[in-house]
């Protein structure tokens, strides 16, 4: 098969979910089963096609792209020909991402059939899923910045629709708005960054921009502008991938249906930011990458500390998502390109699995609570669970595999990618001396193992909070169980590398060759050979350390929550303010409320005061002066001028009083006047 | 034809007069025959004989006897009716119907006027009919008459749309509005050597066009199943309720003339008009008139046949059929015929 035909195939893949969306949004309610099969079939077909693309693409090294002129502005003086292109780019990166997105989307479709059965807006939900998949595929497949930005915004829109799916709930519609608005902040930065690049290069195409840059053509002839553009574009990723300080929307987005959380947080929305950084990797200067790395590290640490103390099963997963995203971003920032992206892929599988698993638990708990006619107990609170292992074996065992994978225990996919990230970070610090980065990375690895096992143990082990409820909890139906099993299988190492202790020999790692940086040498990050050499130096050490730390975290969780050797409450009491801070998410929401919301309000109050006192004072003073002057002129006016005016007015008024009688409100009278006027004009013209 | 008349008639105006009353003669004879035929058709469809006694063979002079009776009747005008309009309405109705025959090519030798807007003129002049019916209904000063008249006007105005659109789709094929030219285009045997070159065989969509045209013309002629205006069981005869004697007879004549008119238009547009179905065999002006009237009478017969086959529609169903089915269908068909013309 010729590579060019991949373009056509990818276009079909791109538009299948859109077709599903359009059909469902217009005809969904009339179709049998409200058309869930339609959306699912569309995505499944697209998934099959994407597998074909992946295998075809991996066989050949070169990438393939095609563009179509969308709008042309002709020649602009001083700029030259400006054409806006739409286009498709398929390389290893997009081919892999395509499969990831469609796999998760397909599994989420299947899972949703069970999870949302009987929902009021069942068909609309599937329509939105299609729209979401379409938007994400657009980001993955595009070959230029503009189209990426368009689909970027579409992702924002569709996530808004999905998070707010149950918009009758105030919290859900608030969460949807929060996600939308917070994302807007990042997108504004991204837009400015794109515009910096466009203004200089007059093109949006990646190839053209990279080509111009590697030829030494810098934006506005300045490296600082390039760094700024890179950081501004990364702002978009900060918003979408929920990096510090714009991470606040993601935990709230848990208000959406759980399969939506799986889709958003595993493969689509948050992955978009990471994917974008990977896609634009050649563009970033060393300084920009350092900023990216630190942002990622801060995010990872911050989110991990919060995740430890949460009790809502989905909130724990949400914070862990942020933490893992921080990992990926950090990996890309230190230059471990393949490691970061590989973590995105492996994380997509096990995090989707974790969310779907938690969805299964919530579903089962809901059903049980419903049978008890208990509508007050929170079905998502892990304190209300426990001992579910015996009742939900499939969910438990798959959940265990996902937890092992996210904690980085050997033989899982998570170990492979996390190990590479840690090695990359440590190698980076040996080259540059940024020792804070590996320190944070290792700490977070331990914390991840701890809080994930805390979640697992509290949910599935031990005793159920209300033992009489336990028999009512039942395993979920097959349409929900099978996606879990598929994802559990995909969380094992064999799919990514045959060597369970080293990813670098696996196909994925080989396929994701780090692209050459196009920025000038003076500001370029360390090249891959240099970094790779450093990595191979520290790799064995890192592997041992990471296993030890992960197992330590695991064991600590085991001791605290299973054996109860230490009392969790006492530890919390001992930690005091740290515990409270963590529990309250380090008061970010409150801080933003205080700084931005109240700050804006205060600013308006100040400007209001300024307006009322200073401006008005000036105006009033001027008024008073004018008043005095006008008194004098008023007297002159009243006596002399008014005499004349009044005479005219009275005269006109007297005429008007007589003339207004002709305004009868009767159209026919007006017609007569009009024709009469016409008559007079004609007579005048004829006689002249 | 005109030259033929001039050859043995003395004065010019007389020629014009004779020339112009030929269709009237045809209509009068046809009406006598058609009313008798309708009774016989009704009788035989309902397994009875129909009129048998008046005259000799199968009661052939029944209609003539009726006519004589009708002429003898008193011309009653209701006391509170609008006398002038009441008396004028039947004449306008018949005049509208009769005027339309001007543009019908009865044979290759006779057409009232070769105006180049022929079919358009027929459509336009028959719309006078609805005005005259409103006139009759209003002037009668009778609730049922007025309701019947309003229904008729609404029905006629509505069904004009599908009629015009189907006619338009034929015009796309012929490229002329003159019915004589339309007929001349259909001369000869074109298809497979034996099928006549008639427009109905021109494309499959023409068959659809004909069916639509026929349904719409049933409604335009106020025939069952669309005979709401005079539906005697509901409206006591509709706009004709107060009429009697010769004035009522004129309305009946108008109705039968309308049937013939629409059938002749259908025959001209779809079935080759005065063309013989056997190519040049039995061709010529006189045979032409025979074929034309035969084709018209066959369609008239189908209309009578339908009357005893289908039940009457309700007034809302009547409008539904027109606006929801006939009009969309005829527009789609128009587009399809245009495409067919573009492609072939």
């Amino acid at each position, binding site marked *: 098969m010729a590579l060019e035909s991949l373009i056509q195939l990818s276009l079909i893949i791109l538009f299948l979910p859109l077709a599903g969306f359009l059909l469902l949004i217009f005809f969904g309610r009339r179709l049998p089963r409200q058309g869930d099969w339609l959306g699912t079939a569309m995505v499944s077909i697209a998934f099959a096609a994407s597998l074909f693309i992946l295998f075809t693409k991996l066989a050949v090294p070169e990438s393939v792209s095609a563009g179509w002129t969308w709008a042309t502005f002709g020649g602009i003086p001083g700029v030259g020909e400006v054409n806006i292109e739409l286009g498709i780019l398929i390389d290893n990166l997009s081919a892999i991402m395509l499969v990831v997105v469609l796999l998760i989307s397909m599994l989420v479709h299947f899972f949703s059939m069970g999870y949302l059965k009987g929902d009021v807006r069942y068909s609309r939900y599937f329509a939105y899923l299609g729209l979401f998949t379409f938007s994400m595929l657009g980001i993955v497949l595009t070959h230029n910045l503009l189209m990426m930005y368009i689909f970027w915004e579409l992702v924002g829109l569709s996530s808004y629709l999905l998070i707010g799916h149950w918009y009758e709930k105030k919290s859900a519609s608030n969460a949807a708005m929060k996600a939308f608005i917070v994302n807007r902040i990042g997108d504004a930065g991204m837009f400015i960054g794109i515009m910096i690049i466009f203004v200089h290069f007059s093109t949006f195409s990646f190839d053209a921009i990279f080509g111009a840059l590697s030829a030494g053509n810098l934006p506005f002839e300045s490296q600082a502008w390039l760094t700024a553009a890179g950081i501004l574009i990364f702002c978009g990723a900060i918003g979408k991938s929920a990096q510090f300080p714009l991470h606040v929307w993601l935990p709230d987005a848990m208000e959406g249906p759980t399969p939506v959380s799986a889709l958003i947080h595993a493969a689509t929305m948050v992955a978009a930011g990471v994917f974008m950084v990977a896609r634009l990797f050649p563009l970033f200067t060393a300084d920009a990458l350092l900023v990216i790395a630190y942002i990622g590290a801060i995010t990872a640490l911050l989110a991990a500390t919060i995740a430890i103390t949460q009790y809502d099963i989905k909130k724990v997963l949400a914070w862990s998502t942020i933490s893992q995203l921080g990992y990926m971003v950090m990996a890309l920032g230190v230059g471990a390109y393949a490691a970061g992206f590989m973590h995105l892929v492996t994380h997509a599988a096990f995090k989707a699995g974790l969310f779907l698993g938690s969805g299964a638990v919530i579903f089962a708990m809901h059903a049980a609570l419903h049978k008890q006619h208990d509508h007050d107990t929170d079905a998502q609170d892990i304190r209300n669970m426990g001992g579910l292992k015996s009742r939900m074996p499939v969910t438990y065992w798959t959940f265990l595999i996902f937890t092992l994978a996210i904690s980085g225990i050997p033989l899982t996919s998570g170990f492979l990618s996390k190990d590479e990230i840690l090695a990359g970070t440590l190698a980076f610090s040996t080259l540059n001396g940024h020792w804070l980065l590996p320190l944070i990375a290792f700490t977070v690895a331990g914390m991840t193992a701890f809080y994930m096992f805390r979640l697992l143990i509290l949910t599935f082990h031990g005793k159920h909070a209300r033992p009489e409820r336990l028999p009512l909890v039942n395993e979920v139906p097959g349409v929900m169980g099978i996606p879990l099993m598929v994802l559990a299988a995909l969380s094992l190492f064999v799919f990514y590398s045959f060597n369970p202790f080293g990813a670098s020999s696996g196909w994925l790692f080989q396929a994701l060759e780090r692209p050459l940086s196009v920025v000038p040498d003076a500001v370029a990050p360390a090249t891959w050979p240099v970094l790779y050499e450093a990595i191979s130096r520290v790799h064995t050490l890192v592997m041992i350390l990471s296993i030890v730390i992960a197992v330590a975290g695991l064991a600590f969780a085991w001791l605290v929550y299973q054996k109860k050797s230490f009392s969790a409450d006492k530890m919390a009491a001992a930690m005091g303010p740290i515990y409270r801070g963590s529990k309250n998410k380090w008061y970010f929401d409150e801080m933003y409320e205080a700084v931005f919301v109240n700050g804006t309000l205060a600013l308006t109050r100040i400007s209001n005061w300024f307006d009322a006192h200073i401006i008005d004072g000036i105006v009033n003073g001027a008024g008073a002066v004018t008043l005095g002057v006008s008194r004098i002129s008023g007297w002159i006016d009243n006596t002399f001028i008014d005499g004349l005016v009044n005479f005219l007015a009275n005269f006109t008024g007297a005429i008007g009083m007589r003339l207004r009688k002709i305004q009868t409100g009767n159209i026919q009278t007006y017609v*007569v006047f009009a*024709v*009469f006027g016409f*008559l007079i004009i*004609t*007579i005048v013209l*004829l006689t002249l | 034809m005109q030259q033929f008349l001039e050859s043995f008639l003395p004065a010019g105006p007389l020629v014009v007069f004779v020339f112009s009353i030929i269709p009237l003669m045809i209509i009068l004879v046809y009406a006598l025959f058609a009313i008798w035929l309708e009774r016989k058709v009704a009788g035989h469809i309902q397994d009875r004989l129909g009129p048998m006694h008046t005259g000799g063979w199968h009661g052939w002079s029944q209609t003539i006897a009726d006519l004589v009776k009708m002429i003898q009747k008193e011309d009653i005008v209701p006391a*509170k009716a*609008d006398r002038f*309009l009441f008396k004028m309405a039947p004449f306008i109705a018949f005049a509208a119907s009769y005027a339309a025959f001007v543009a019908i090519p009865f044979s290759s030798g006779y057409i009232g006027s070769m*105006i*180049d*807007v022929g079919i*358009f*003129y027929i*459509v*336009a*002049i028959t*719309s*006078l009919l*609805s*005005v005259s019916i*409103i*006139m009759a209904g*209003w002037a009668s*000063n009778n*609730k049922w008459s*007025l309701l019947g008249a*309003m229904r008729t*006007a609404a029905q006629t*105005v509505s069904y*004009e749309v599908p009629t015009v659109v189907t006619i338009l789709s034929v015009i796309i094929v012929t490229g002329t*509005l003159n019915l004589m030219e339309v007929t001349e285009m259909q001369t000869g045997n074109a298809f497979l050597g034996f099928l006549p070159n008639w427009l109905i065989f021109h494309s499959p969509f023409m068959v659809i066009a004909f069916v639509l045209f026929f349904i719409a013309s049933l409604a335009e002629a106020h025939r069952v199943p669309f005979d709401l205006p005079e539906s005697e069981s509901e409206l006591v005869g509709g706009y004709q309720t107060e009429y009697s004697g010769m004035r009522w007879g004129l309305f009946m004549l108008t109705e039968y003339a309308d049937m013939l008119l629409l059938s002749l238009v259908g025959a001209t547009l779809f079935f080759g008009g005065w063309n013989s179905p056997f190519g040049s065999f039995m061709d010529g002006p006189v045979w032409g008139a025979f074929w034309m009237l035969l084709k018209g009478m066959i369609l008239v017969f189908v209309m009578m046949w339908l009357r005893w086959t289908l039940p009457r529609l309700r007034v809302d169903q009547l409008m539904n059929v027109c606006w929801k089915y006939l009009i969309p269908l005829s527009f789609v068909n128009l587009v399809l015929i245009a495409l067919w013309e573009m492609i072939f």
Partner: protein
Amino acid sequence: MDLFAVAFYVFAILIIGSAAIMVFSRNIVHSAFALMFTLAGVAVFYALLYAGFVAVTQLLVYVGGILVLILFGVMLTTRGYFEKVRTRTVNLVPSTIFAAIIGLMLIAVYVTTEWTLMPLEDGEVTLTGLGELLLTDFMLPFQVAGVLLLLCIIGAVLMAARTRHPHPPAGKSSQEGPGGPSYGEGTGRS
């Protein structure tokens, strides 16, 4: 005096006579039917002026369409179908004088002006010519007219199909006193 002149005078008398009946008749239904004769007569005039297509369009649109609409309008806007179709005529004498002055002036202008004449040949007007003009020089008006008609259909249907205010029954208004119009509910008079 040829046939053309005879036709002209006969139909000129018909047009003007029926128009006069239309204007002066107190019975509005009579006016409407008189209008029919005027319109048909004008159609004949068009035919005399070699404008066959315009004539037929006049018949179809005016007589078949507008006149029926007007008749419906008359019958829907009179209370009781037969009694109150009489309408008022006001200021008849002054308006007649006024209209007569206008008419005479128009005639004076028409007759005194020296028109540049360039008569058409019979047969010069063909449908083909009109059709070609319609699709070339008059393309834009043609399209605009189409859009306008569509808008009018929608607008008229919307206006006529709006929920009716319950207007007072025919008998009631006389009880409310002479002269004063009876207002339906919701006219905002409080």
